[in-house]
């Protein structure tokens, strides 16, 4: 089991062929066979974050680099070290207290919409059910992430282990497309990538400026505002106000502009993102939803950092999907040329001052 510290670097567990080598007489030694693809993240609850399922999916997609769509979608995900609920068990007589479900690194709605093939996440109690049977269970195909094993395998302590399937293993840029399309079709009724040009909306009603109209008419930009939070980073109030003004001007050109704050509903947020060619926000885990943005040749993800500091979490993820990545720091645009290709140059050796 994991110790909550890292992911397995190079594990690609594929037991599909194993079943064909088991002699029928041996079948008595396992209790049952669970068909399909099973993801297992053995990390404890604090280590589960917005990168967990993405990393498992990325790892799985490396089994077929040339045609990831030919892989069957995962059928279940186990979190054997994560209890189903995070709150203390309430008094059985008190039925009015809603239970707090475990964090699986994404909104439960997103799991249902983007991973419809998953029967649902299964937790420690479910895993204990299998243990209680007292006999082994044969899983057809398993993809496992285990940070403890990764550490024992030599992964440096300071390396964010979820990055390894992104940086050390090859996969198609389309590796996330099945999930993105599922969510888009679920909330929009169709995949925006195949839905034609669409129409502009949310503009001020003024005619588009000629120079911008051609570019603007069919595109959507979403700004995920974080100004209402009590902690974490946000824009300076004056800069936020200036950005809203500039985005309003952009909307006048015919571009659809959505500004969503922390209080937007899941549906509002995901509908906007699924249509968006450009997504902009300050850095943070809330950007996990942006992986569902519309795909085009110039889909662009913009992330704002404090002066002198940055991280490469979302750059690592979105660039693996073929999305352009732009970082802003202070008042400066950080040149894309300073970000080396993930598979070639590794990570930056300095922060931008």
């Amino acid at each position, binding site marked *: 089991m994991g110790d909550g510290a890292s992911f397995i670097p190079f594990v690609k567990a594929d037991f599909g062929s194993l079943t064909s080598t088991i002699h029928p007489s041996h079948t008595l030694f396992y209790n049952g066979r669970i068909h399909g693809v099973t993801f297992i993240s053995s990390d404890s609850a604090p280590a589960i974050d917005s990168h967990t399922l993405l990393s498992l999916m990325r790892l799985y997609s490396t089994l077929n680099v040339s045609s990831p769509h030919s892989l069957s979608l995962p059928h279940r995900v186990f979190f054997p070290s994560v209890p189903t609920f995070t709150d203390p068990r309430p008094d059985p007589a008190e039925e009015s207290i809603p239970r707090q479900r475990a964090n699986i690194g994404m909104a439960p709605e997103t799991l249902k919409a983007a991973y419809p093939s998953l029967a649902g996440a299964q937790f420690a109690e479910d895993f204990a059910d299998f243990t209680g049977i007292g006999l082994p269970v044969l899983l057809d195909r398993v993809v496992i992430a285990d940070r403890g094993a990764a550490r024992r395998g030599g992964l440096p302590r300071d*390396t964010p282990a979820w990055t390894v399937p992104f940086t050390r293993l090859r996969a198609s840029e389309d590796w996330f497309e099945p999930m993105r399309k599922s969510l888009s079709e679920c909330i929009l009724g169709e995949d925006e990538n195949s839905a034609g040009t669409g129409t502009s909306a949310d503009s001020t009603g003024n005619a588009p400026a000629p120079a911008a109209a051609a570019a603007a008419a069919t595109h959507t930009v979403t700004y995920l505002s974080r100004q209402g939070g009590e902690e974490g980073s946000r824009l300076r109030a004056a800069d936020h106000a200036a950005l809203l003004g500039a985005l309003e001007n952009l909307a006048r050109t015919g571009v659809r502009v959505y500004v969503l704050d922390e209080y937007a509903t899941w549906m509002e947020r995901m509908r906007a993102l699924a249509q968006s060619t450009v997504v902009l926000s300050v850095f943070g885990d809330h950007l996990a939803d942006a992986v569902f943005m519309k795909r085009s040749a110039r889909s662009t993800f913009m992330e704002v950092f404090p002066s002198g*500091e940055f991280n490469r979490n979302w750059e690592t993820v979105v660039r693996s999907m073929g999305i352009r990545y732009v970082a802003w720091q202070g008042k400066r645009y950080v040149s894309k040329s300073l970000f080396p290709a993930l598979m070639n140059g590794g990570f930056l050796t300095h*922060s931008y001052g």
Partner: protein
Amino acid sequence: MVRKYAGNDMPEVSESSSFDDLELDAQAVVDAIMEELNRAVAD
């Protein structure tokens, strides 16, 4: 919390608190957005 990476092949990570309000040149951002959108049309 910001993770600052340094290293050659894989990052080393140091963490520091960064709860400051961030500066941003709003007009430069929107200009860059337009640049990206125009590029998409050109393709």
